[in-house]
């Protein structure tokens, strides 16, 4: 039993792809077709899986292909831990602290702006202003945080204890 160590491989892990599909489906279909408390939560659960895996994969790929210094297992897992922690903060703080919610709303709005501007240019419309995204603080969204552990399990590169036991000697 082995684990893939190719940089960015966790991004195409079935768990990540499932979370990604769930995130997109929920945000763009389910929330409109059958809005409810569970569609409000579903994206949070999926997002807490996708975000750390995605940021970690980007770091892995940058290290391997840009800086030409691929992460070793220990460094990769440290960065993964940091990515999970950062994702927890990114998800949790806006739910409980208004300034963080404002940062989230304006930050994501600013990140979306280039794409909205491109769409406006392509459709011959005036450039849109940078606008905050819509967000509703809800402490119960913190229930999604444990999904970060799933992200860690998907992204970690060190073998689990069982894997170590069955690994044959060199």
């Amino acid at each position, binding site marked *: 039993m082995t*684990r893939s160590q*190719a*940089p960015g491989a966790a991004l195409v892990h079935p768990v990540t792809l499932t979370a990604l599909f769930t*995130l997109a489906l929920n945000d763009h279909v389910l929330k409109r077709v059958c809005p409810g408390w569970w569609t409000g939560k579903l994206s949070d659960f999926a997002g807490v899986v996708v975000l750390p895996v995605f940021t970690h994969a980007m770091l892995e790929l940058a290290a391997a292909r840009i800086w030409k210094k691929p992460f070793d297992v220990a460094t990769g897992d440290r960065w993964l831990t940091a990515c999970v922690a950062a994702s927890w903060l990114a998800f949790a703080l806006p739910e409980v602290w208004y300034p963080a919610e404002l940062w989230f709303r304006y930050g994501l709005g600013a990140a*979306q702006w280039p794409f909205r501007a491109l769409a406006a240019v392509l459709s011959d419309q005036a450039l849109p202003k940078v606008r905050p*995204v*819509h*967000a509703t603080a809800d402490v119960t969204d913190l229930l999604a945080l444990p999904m970060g552990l799933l992200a860690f399990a998907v992204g970690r590169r060190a*073998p689990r204890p069982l894997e170590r036991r069955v690994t044959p000697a060199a």
Partner: protein
Amino acid sequence: MKAGWLQFGRKRASVTAASPDNAVTAPPAWLLATAIVCSTAALLGTSDVDEPRYPRTYTFARSGVDGGFVELTRDQPAATFIVSLHADDLAADGVPSTDEASALVDGTITTTGLDEGKVAPYVDVQLSTPEGAGTQKVELEHFNQAQPIYFTGDCENPKASGSCTAHFAVAVSRQDQGESGGVVRFDWTFDVTSKVLVDVASQEASSVGPVDPPWTIEVSQP
């Protein structure tokens, strides 16, 4: 314990390094690129931009609806018309069309064949709704009066519920109770309007209409 937790990676690194069969299977570049693009799009698009919202005023109007006429005589010095308005559906853009509704009644009074020496009688015209609102005027030749009307029932889903309706009554009566003889004819028409304010994602306040409301209007005499 603390040091052990911080060093977990290093320990595992040594174990992994000694494992020759650890697969290093790079996913195909196209798959990785697709996953990156999809992840970026999904994460960026997880929340819609909070577009500014401004009021849009929808005005609905149906003008010159024929109310019919009545001839008030010695035998029938008074009459009442009942107007029923039934909202059949939501209007365009899915907005309800039944807020701030009112009717403007316009009537013409003509008198003929009065008894010798009698003068044309005044006519009481009363507008009223089942909710109790109403106005009354006394006129000799022409009547013009607005009356708020109120839709009741499930007007958010009028098509499904079939229950969104409003009513108003127009009651006319000769003040002379017909004693002057002859015929007092009351011809009337009415306009109905409504105004609905909806907040929409927009750069400025706007208005739509007047457009014909999706209503069925009936006039009857009990």
